[in-house]
């Protein structure tokens, strides 16, 4: 399990290659990349600053990944979240999950993203023409998390 909170950018292709290395039982890799959009809530975004709670962040991500590993058959996972100053089209977050079969990889990847959005201590501040503003949490993110409280069934 690779968990990293970093200022530097990441390379999706290289991360997935490393996740898969020497694991010929892997049949499926689902991955997600979150990006800085140039427009959010109707305003042009010139830049974004990501603050976090250093002592808690990695632990929170590790707990989310461990919970996903309890719920689905996963072989390995990678979570990378960037901090610091980011600009439109920059990569913010990567979640990649390897498993034998695709349903586990998809479900675990989406689960990790949903919980990261509501329980990993990151905060975004956007620079817009109207000034700097802290991004508000979205209610849809809470809703997305809550749908996982029931066991996932096909």
């Amino acid at each position, binding site marked *: 399990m690779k968990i990293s909170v970093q200022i530097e950018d990441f390379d999706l292709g290289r991360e997935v290659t490393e996740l898969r290395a020497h694991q010929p039982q892997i049949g499926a890799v689902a991955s997600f990349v979150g990006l800085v959009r140039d427009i959010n809530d109707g305003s042009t975004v010139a830049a974004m600053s990501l603050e976090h709670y250093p002592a808690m962040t990695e632990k929170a991500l590790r707990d989310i990944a461990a919970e996903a590993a309890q719920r689905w058959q996963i072989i390995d996972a990678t979570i990378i979240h960037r901090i610091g100053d980011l600009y439109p089209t920059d990569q913010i977050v990567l979640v990649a999950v390897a498993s034998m079969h695709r349903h586990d990889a998809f479900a675990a990847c989406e689960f990790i993203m949903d919980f990261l959005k509501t329980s*990993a201590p990151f905060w975004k501040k956007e620079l817009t023409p109207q000034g700097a503003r802290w991004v508000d949490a979205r209610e849809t993110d809470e809703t997305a998390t809550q749908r996982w409280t029931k066991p996932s069934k096909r």
Partner: protein
Amino acid sequence: MHIKVLYFARLREQFGVSEEIVELPDGAVMVAMLLDVLRARGGVWAEQLAAGQAYRVAVNQELADQVAPIEAGDEVAIFPPVTGG
């Protein structure tokens, strides 16, 4: 007893402090009691930590609710709902 309290993001800016040591009565204490002490400062503290305001509390780096116990040496963090990802 002394509790280390951290603030992040919007709350850090509004309180104008990122970290402080708060003095609480010794013994069994809950998160709610720390919040009462902070609200008693009035102004932006009373306002931002009022019932109905959206904020989160972590005790020793784990999300916690109002009845979670805290003891000497614990690290408590108070912050807005998270917005990463």
